C-alpha cells in the first residue's frame, strides 16, 4: 500500500471505465493533475462525486467522460456558473448526464459515513428544502428517543478517491495541511485512494501529533506532481491562480474554445507541465 509511482501508472491502475470516483478538494488542494491524467487516458462512463464540482469536473464533463454527477454546489468559485456542465444538463452536449444533488451538509456527512463504514448518514437537514422532492436518495429516519424526523442519505463509497496533498514520506504516509476539507473522509470512504503530492520527503519527524495524516496503509498509490493542484493552491507552496479561474469562464463559454484549450493544455502535455504553471505563484 502507498506505493510511489508515476501519475500515469497510478491513474491507469486505479481508475476504470464506469467507476464511481471522487476528485476531492474544497477550493484548496484540488487534484487537477490527476483529473487531467484521467482525461488523457480517456477513462469514461464515470460517476463523479464532489461537493463542489468546479473547473476540473467541468473539463471532464465537457470531454464526455461523465455519465452522472453527485454534488452540492456546481460553480466556478468566485466567478460564476460551470458552462460545460450546464451544456450537458441543458443541452445534452456532448452527452446528457444524470445529476444527484445534495446540500453541502449532506455530502460532507455522506463521506463521513462512508469513512465510518456506515450505510447512511443521519442528520438534521433538508427542512423545507426542495431537493427532497427531486432526489430519491434523501430519506428520513425517526429518532427512537425524541420522535424527531431526521434526514438520511446514503454513505458515499467511491471506487476510487483522488486527492492532492502537500507531502508524502518515503513510507507513503500523507500529510494534508490548511483547509483540509473533506479529503480524509473521501479517502477513507473509498476502495482505492490515489494521492498526488507536492513533494516526497524522507520522513515526518517532528510534526505535531494532531495533524491530518493518512497512514501509508490507507493509500493505494502516490505520485509526486509539483504544482498538481493548479489553478487551485497548496498551502505553504503556492497561491491560488485566480486569473485562471476568471479565464475559465471565457474558455468554457464556447465549445470550440474549450476543445482547443483541452487539446493544448491537457491532451498535448503531461503532469510535468504543472510545475511550470505555479512558478509565478510560489511564495
Amino acid at each position, binding site marked *: 500500500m502507498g506505493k510511489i509511482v508515476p501519475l500515469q501508472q497510478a491513474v491507469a491502475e486505479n481508475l476504470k471505465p464506469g467507476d464511481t470516483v471522487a476528485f476531492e478538494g*474544497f*477550493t*484548496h488542494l484540488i487534484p487537477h493533475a490527476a483529473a487531467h491524467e484521467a482525461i488523457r487516458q480517456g477513462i469514461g462512463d464515470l460517476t463523479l462525486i464532489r*461537493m*463542489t464540482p468546479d473547473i476540473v469536473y467541468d473539463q471532464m464533463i465537457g470531454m464526455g467522460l461523465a455519465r452522472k454527477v453527485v*454534488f*452540492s*454546489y*456546481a*460553480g466556478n*468559485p*468566485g466567478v460564476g*456558473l*460551470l458552462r460545460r*456542465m*450546464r451544456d450537458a*444538463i*441543458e443541452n445534452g452536449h456532448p452527452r446528457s448526464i444524470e445529476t444527484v*444533488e445534495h*446540500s*453541502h*451538509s449532506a455530502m*460532507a*456527512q455522506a*463521506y*463521513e459515513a462512508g469513512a465510518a463504514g456506515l450505510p447512511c448518514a443521519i*442528520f*438534521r*437537514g*433538508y*427542512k*423545507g*428544502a*426542495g*431537493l427532497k422532492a*427531486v432526489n430519491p436518495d434523501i430519506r428520513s429516519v425517526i429518532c427512537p428517543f425524541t420522535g*424527531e*424526523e431526521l434526514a438520511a442519505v446514503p454513505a458515499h463509497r467511491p471506487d476510487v478517491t483522488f486527492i492532492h496533498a502537500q507531502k508524502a514520506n518515503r513510507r507513503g504516509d500523507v500529510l494534508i495541511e*490548511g*483547509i*483540509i*476539507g*473533506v479529503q*480524509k*473522509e473521501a479517502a477513507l470512504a473509498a476502495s482505492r485512494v490515489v494521492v498526488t503530492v507536492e513533494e516526497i520527503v524522507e520522513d515526518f519527524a517532528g510534526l505535531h501529533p494532531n495533524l*491530518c495524516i493518512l497512514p501509508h496503509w490507507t493509500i493505494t498509490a502516490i505520485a509526486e506532481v509539483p504544482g498538481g493542484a493548479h489553478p487551485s*493552491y497548496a*498551502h505553504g507552496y503556492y*497561491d*491560488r491562480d*485566480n*486569473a485562471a*479561474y476568471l479565464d475559465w469562464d471565457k474558455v468554457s463559454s464556447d465549445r470550440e474554445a474549450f476543445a482547443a484549450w483541452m487539446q493544448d493544455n491537457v491532451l498535448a502535455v503531461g503532469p510535468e507541465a504543472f510545475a511550470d504553471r505555479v512558478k*509565478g505563484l510560489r511564495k
Partner: protein
Amino acid sequence: MSDFTPTEMMTIAAARQLTSKDVCFVGIGAPSAACNVARLTHAPDITLIYESGTIGTAPDVLPLSIGDGELCETAVSTVSVPEMFRYWLMGGRISIGFLGAAQLDRFGNINTTVIGDYHHPKVRLPGGGGAPEIASSCGEVYITLKQAKRAMVEKIDFFTSFGHGEGGDHRQRLGIKTKGPTLLITDLAIWRPDPETKEFVVRSLHQGVTREMVQETCGWTVRFADDLEETPPPTHEELETLRALNERTRLAHSGGKAA
C-alpha cells in the same frame, strides 16, 4: 458621505446589523464584504466562519473563493468540512447566516438551483451548497440581494432553502426552531418580515431611493412600513473602510500588480 454606490450602501447597511457578539456563517461576495467591514469598524470581536472550515478568521483582503489561503492563515482554527457542518452549523453555534439568491420570494424563500423545471432546466444554477441547512440551523438569516424583477419574484422556481414558506408559522409547523430570514438588505432598502405574516416589508429606504424605484425592481407588490425610515448614508469611516478593503482585495487578486 453622499457619494456612494447602491452596492456600497447595501454592504454597509448589512455591516451595521452585526455586533461583536455575533458568530456569522459567511458567504462570498456582499456578505463577506459586509462582515469584514463590521469587523474593521464597530464589531472588532465578531466571529467569522467560512464553510471551508475556517473559524474566527480575519482576512486582510476579501477571499475570491470560500476557501482562500488568507482565511486559513488568519483563522483561530481550521477544521474539516464535515466537522464544520456537524459541530458548528448543525450544532446551533452560528447566530447569523448570510444568504444570497438568484430568486427570492416575499417570504424569504430562496432559489439558487434552477430556472425553469428541475429536470429540464432553462438555466442550471450552481445549487444550494450550504444554504439548505444554513437556512434552518443558524439563529437567524440575513439575505442580501440587488433588486431586480427577475430576482424578486412572486413564485420561485425551486425551494433551494426554506425561509418562511407560505408565511405565518410555517417554519414552526415544519419543526424548525430557528428564526429564519429576519432581514433583507438590498441595494435600495432594508426589509424586515411582518411579525405575523412574515412577508418582507420595507422598513427603510436608502438615501435617494423612492418607493417607485423599489416597486419597479420587485416582482411582487411591495408593502412599506407605516413608519418608513431613511437609511443613514455611509459614514466616512464606513465607506473608507469598505473601499480600502476592496482596493486591497483587487491588488491581491491581480497578483499585486496595479491595474
